[in-house]
Every structure is written in C-alpha cells, then in structure tokens.
C-alpha cells in the first residue's frame, strides 16, 4: 500500500530527489555522538507541547474569573485531563532543560564555529522564546504563586532603563497585573510565540540540514590526521531509529512524572491578598532572580537592580554573538569561549542551587 502511495507521489513530484537529502544524510560517529540527540529531543518535546497545548485549548478559559476553575475542571472532570495537563507542565520544564543542555553541548563541542554562526543565533533566539513560553504559560492557571511570580517578574522588567516602564505596561496590559495581563499572556503563549518559534525552527532546522552535523574540534583534528578513522552513521534509518528510542523513553519519563508527581494547582489568585512568603520564579529564572536579590541596593551611584538587569542584558547579547569571539579558528578564541561557557554553566548551577537552599 505504501508502495502505491509512493508511486502516486512519484508521478507528480520527483520522490527520489525529494528524499535524496534524507537518504544521504549521515551523522558522524564518535564518542561524543550521543550529544547529537539533544536537539531532536527538544524538538520532540516542543511537539508534545503543541499537541497537549491544543488539547488544553479545548477546555481552558482565559479570563481571570474562569481560568483557575477551567484548569481545575480539566484536572478533575475531563477524562484524562489530569494526564494532559501534567504532561504539558512537565514537558515545558523538560524542554527548557534540554534546550539549555543542547546549547551548552553545542558550545562545548564547538558546533557554533564557522559556518554555523546563524544556526547558533537562531538557536539562542529559540531559547529566549522557550523561556518566554515558560513565563507566559506559568500565569495561565491564575493561581496565587503564578500571579505573584508574574508581578515580581514584570516589576523587574520595569527596572530596565529608559524603556523599562513602557515594556512593563506592554507586558502587563496596564499598570498592574490584572485579567488584562492574563489575556495578553494567553495571546503571547498560543499565537505570537508559537508563530515566531515555528519560523525560527524552520530556519534553524534548514540550516542544520544544509551544513550537516558538526564534528568536535578534537575529533576533527584526529580524523584529519587519520582519515581512515572517520566513521559515519546513516541518519535514515540508523540514527533515526536511535532517536526514536530516545523519544520513546522521554515519553515514558513524562507519563511517569504525570502519574506519580502530578503538577499542583494551588489556590486561586487573589490580587488583594498580601503576597505569600517565599515567592520565587520557576527554576530557569532562579539564577537571575537570586543574583538580583544579592546585589546590594546601590553599587557606586547605580541602582543595584538596574545594574543587575544591565549585566544580564549585556551577557545575553554577548551570548547571542558568541561565535564571533571564536572566528579565527585559533586557540585563543576557542579558549575564550570555553572559559566563558564553563563560567556561565557553573554560575547558573550555583545560583540556582543557592536560590533554592537560601532562606
């Protein structure tokens, strides 16, 4: 039956030419090949988010008076609603985690180097979009924790010099976090961000296909010296089957998390109640939050918060343009990027742990 279908397509399009890149695609085989899975897993998790997100859209109501109740409804009355919602919440966190891992592995394995600078840039933008997904999605159940986390988060945005206030009002849909904020975040989460993500994803994946898989510098050097050592694996079916295995296992992990550690709902947000103790952002913002908490109120003449935001802003831009620090192919550039990567990774891990263990 599949043969008949293929023939039908072949009579209209050149099936062989269409599928040639896929059939030819090969993945370098070396000790560090396992890191190649991370991008695919992130993509897979994004696909899960889109599917569970669409399912949630069937019942979710994006207004301050009904949002919490609708999520409660999904969790308790809709058949398997608990499963869909918990998978959506867990996969969101897992996706951001794998995205970070993917980014750091690309950094440490040097896959950002020429000619793949644009792949890195689109990838970083995708990471920022993923964090935007996390921030906007977190508010949607309209529970106490989310409400206050959004309040604090947008308040910090307001500290950006010059454009801060305008940015804050734009994000909040007003001066305060209200039902208008919920509507806006909903729009970001289900329309704006997905649209931008799909666009960037297409570019990112097209670039990956075009340039092929990068080989880490050490392995590259060895294969240059001894060409017979170079190994490859066909993408289709070998690597793809392995990736399928990884995706299946990820699915199993998600199901287990949803059933054994279901995502909490909390209590409905009350804008007039005082903020409960211990408001914190989600873990992927924790390192920034903790840094801002620890910066003294005033550093020389500059307000502490503003300084922190500026530092992170500059760091973000530097990170975006990382490949351009390692252009010449020399050791110094590589060392610089590696050093920066080790510093960033350690800093993020340390500040995240600190944020959770500090009183």
């Amino acid at each position, binding site marked *: 039956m599949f043969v008949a279908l293929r023939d039908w397509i072949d009579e209209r399009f050149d099936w062989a030419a269409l599928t040639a890149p896929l059939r030819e695609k090969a993945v370098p085989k070396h000790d560090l090949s396992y890191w190649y899975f991370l991008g695919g897993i992130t993509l897979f998790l994004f696909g899960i988010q889109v599917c569970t997100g669409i399912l949630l859209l069937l019942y979710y109501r994006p207004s301050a*008076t009904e949002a919490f109740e609708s999520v*409660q*409804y999904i969790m308790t009355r*809709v058949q398997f609603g608990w499963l869909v919602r918990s998978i959506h919440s867990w996969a969101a966190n897992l996706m951001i985690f794998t995205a970070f891992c993917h980014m750091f592995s690309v950094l440490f394995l040097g896959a950002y180097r020429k000619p793949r600078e644009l792949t890195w840039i689109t990838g970083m933008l995708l990471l920022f979009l993923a964090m935007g997904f996390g921030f906007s999605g977190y508010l949607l159940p309209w529970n106490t924790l989310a409400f206050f986390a959004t309040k604090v988060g947008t308040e910090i945005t307001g500290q950006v010099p010059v454009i801060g206030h305008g940015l804050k009002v734009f994000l909040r849909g007003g001066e305060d976090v209200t039902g208008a904020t919920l509507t806006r975040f909903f729009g970001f989460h289900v329309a704006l961000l997905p649209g931008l993500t799909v666009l960037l994803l297409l570019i990112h994946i097209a670039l990956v296909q075009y340039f092929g898989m990068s080989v880490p510098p050490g392995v590259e050097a060895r294969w240059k010296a001894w060409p017979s050592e170079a190994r490859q694996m066909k993408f289709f079916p070998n690597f793809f089957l392995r990736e399928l295995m990884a995706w299946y296992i990820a699915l199993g992990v998600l199901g287990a998390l949803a059933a054994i550690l279901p995502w909490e709902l909390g209590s409905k947000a009350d804008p007039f109640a005082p903020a409960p103790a211990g408001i914190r952002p989600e873990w992927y913002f924790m390192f920034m939050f903790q840094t801002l908490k620890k910066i003294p109120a005033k550093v020389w003449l500059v307000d502490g918060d503003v300084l922190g935001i500026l530092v992170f802003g500059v760091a973000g831009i530097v990170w975006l343009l990382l490949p351009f620090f390692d252009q010449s192919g020399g050791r110094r550039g590589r060392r610089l990027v590696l050093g920066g990567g080790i510093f960033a990774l350690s800093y993020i891990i340390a500040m995240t742990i600190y944020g959770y263990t500090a009183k």
Partner: protein
Amino acid sequence: MAADPSPQPKPARRRVIEILLGGGLLGSFASFIYPVLRYLVPPPVAELGGDQITAGKIGELKPNSAKIFRFGSRPGLLIRNTDGSYRALSATCTHLGCIVQYRGDLQEIWCACHNGLYDLNGRNVSGPPPRPLEVYEVHLRGDDVVVSLKREA
C-alpha cells in the same frame, strides 16, 4: 560470496523482534490515542462551578422546605417559599461557621449550634450571629434551579 538471492524462512529471532516492535508500536499508539479520544469527549457537567451552579430541579422541593447544596467549596441553602418561589443563601453561619437550616415552623433560618436566627432575607435577627447571611440570586432555567452570586448592579 554473493548474497543469497533465494528467500529463506525467517529465523525465530527476527520474528521476535518484529512482534516486539510491531506489537509494541501498535500498543503504544493505542495507549496514546485512547486517552486523547476520551479527552475529546466533553464531560456531562459543563459548568465550572465558579460563580454559578445548578442547585436542584424544579419540583424537587415542596413549598416551605429547603435543601443544602454545594456551591463551589461552600454550602448553600436553597429554600422553596410557601408561595412556590425560590430563594438561596449561604448556609455558613456567620457566628462560628456551623451549617444553618431552614425552620418551616418559624419560617426563619436557624443555626443549631448556638441558637442563631436569621430572617428569610438573611438578616441576623437573634442570637450570636454578628452578620447577615450572603444572599444569592436564583434563576429558573428549563428544569433547573440555578443559583449564582449576586452581581453588582
């Protein structure tokens, strides 16, 4: 040595793999599709229970009688007046939180815990309750008696 062109009976190992893979894939798809299909079917109760709830059916209560219904997480009191109309109030006594009841003999609302009394408009008339009971709006929709929170004018 060239590859043998004639077809051979499949070795047992291959069959095991095929069954494992084929059966597993089928089974896993079923275990994904089944919950999704069930999810797509809307549950019988469409109301979220936030600001509004169906407290009962018309004809369920006789005139001059009442029942306790659940309004979200709070108890409510649905009273059918002697003239057949309905009224609904919060059933949580404003004194120390006991559940009140309707007294047909007094045509007032009574709290058995400390003998608090409210009139049919919820106003605390005697005993310890310091505040009136919250009054809800009642509408008849088809067969249902629907109770909702009072909306600001």
